[in-house]
């Protein structure tokens, strides 16, 4: 208990809060890593996932590829990149991008796959072009699962961004590694609390966002016809990403 209080006291001490190496700056760095890595990963993973989900081709490769990326130990990758790219933000950023890709990829293609085939067939039959089928049908209906992917991606990255401090890349991990080296447990704990709080806040925001992006017609409960609802359309509302289902 004393340790926790020590951690909180460390957080509340203005001397630790402000300035270029205060925790506010470090927290912003942590956020910068998180959203930077997820944004870069999204540029790669979302178009790829959409292509896989729309065509149904290359699904096995995508599953194997993202499974493989997931299996990589982040610390190992970080050290490897650290040797290759030197100290600074590049190595952690690259490591985090790799970590962020699999959930985004899975969210993108699972979102497309969850759309009822008959809806897509009908869209095509009334005269939508392939691009219109993607833009007007698959993207809006697949959005909840994609946001689910962004959510798990962000959460994994925000926690792992702590490792950046290990090779001098800044962010909140700096305090943890520094605290460990100097036996300053208040500092370690304070930073840990901040990382945890940050992760929880982001989780809350994304949980809410995920609810908000479910198309209104999909959440709208009918007066009847509950039985006729297809299992596929129900899957659109679910939050967890299931890979290789």
């Amino acid at each position: 208990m004393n340790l926790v209080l020590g951690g909180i006291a460390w957080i509340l001490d203005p001397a630790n809060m402000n300035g270029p190496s205060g925790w506010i700056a470090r927290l912003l760095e942590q956020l910068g890593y998180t959203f930077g890595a997820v944004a870069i990963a999204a540029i790669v993973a979302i178009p790829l996932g959409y292509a896989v989900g729309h065509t149904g081709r290359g699904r096995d490769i995508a599953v194997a590829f993202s499974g493989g990326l997931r299996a990589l130990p982040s610390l190992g990758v970080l050290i490897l990149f650290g040797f290759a790219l030197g100290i600074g933000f590049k190595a952690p950023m690259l490591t985090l991008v790799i970590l962020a890709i699999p959930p985004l990829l899975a969210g993108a293609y699972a979102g497309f796959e969850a759309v009822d085939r008959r809806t897509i067939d009908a869209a095509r039959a009334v005269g939508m072009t392939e691009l219109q089928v993607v833009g007007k049908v698959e993207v809006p209906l697949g959005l909840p699962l994609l946001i689910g992917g962004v959510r798990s991606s962000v959460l994994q990255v925000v926690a792992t961004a702590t490792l950046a401090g290990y090779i001098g890349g800044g962010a909140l991990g700096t305090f943890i590694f520094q605290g460990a080296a100097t036996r300053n447990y208040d500092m370690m704990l304070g930073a840990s609390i901040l990382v945890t709080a940050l992760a929880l806040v982001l989780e809350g925001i994304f949980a809410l966002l995920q609810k908000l992006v479910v198309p209104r017609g999909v959440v709208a409960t009918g007066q009847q016809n509950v039985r006729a609802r297809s299992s596929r359309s129900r899957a659109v509302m679910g939050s967890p990403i299931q890979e290789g289902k």
Partner: protein
Amino acid sequence: MIEFRSVTKRFPDGTLAVDSFDLVVPPRKTTVLVGSSGCGKTTLLRMINRMIDPTSGSILIDGEDTGGLEPVKLRRRIGYVMQNSGLLPHRKVIDNVATVPILNGTPKREAREHALELLDTVGLDRSLADKYPRQLSGGQQQRVGVARGLAADPNILLMDEPFGAVDPIVRAELQQETIRLQEGLGKTVVFVTHDIDEAFLLGHQVVILQKGGHIAQSGTPAEILAAPANDFVATFVGADKRKRALHIQRVGDRDVVVDENGTPTGVLQP
């Protein structure tokens, strides 16, 4: 007029769905393709708007070979109504109906106004316009599907077992509505079903199909009932089970029609 000229479809897995099929679909009439599952009827229907391309042979609409047309443009001028309505779940009823005109470049407001009129046409209350498909009953959804099919004012309306998933009472209602609409609007309707009673009810021309899209018999319902071409047709229309065998009984001064069990089904009008 739609013409099938020795149309063959072999799917990549080797299935011969349709084998050298010839048919002329007369304009402004309802032609029903009827047969058991696997007879190629849906394949035939979907080849008209090029959702499926024939392996060989050609399909002509008013003398024009569809093979040379852009599939997307072709589909936008042919109405399509499918089983389970195929409505976009994230769009309101009105926007579903207005889909095709908006794709064709009609201003949104105009398309929506026209869509409201179409709701009247198919017998839906305008208050449903702002609902989502899921908030409607199965029968209402099918009506929206029909309204969408009519939205671009196509000459041809393709209907793929549109009433297969609704209950018998609603189905009977929708069938009457279809007859009324076809007569009122004079569309060329191609209708696919496995239900021979539905085929006889709706079709000016009924085409009974056997496996591989072979035509067992084609003609008006009366022609088919009066002279089934072979045993397959006789079985299919139920003539062999005496289901269609009605007799006249003289009761007093009226002619009463009775079925094979002697149950009265109606009275002959003078």
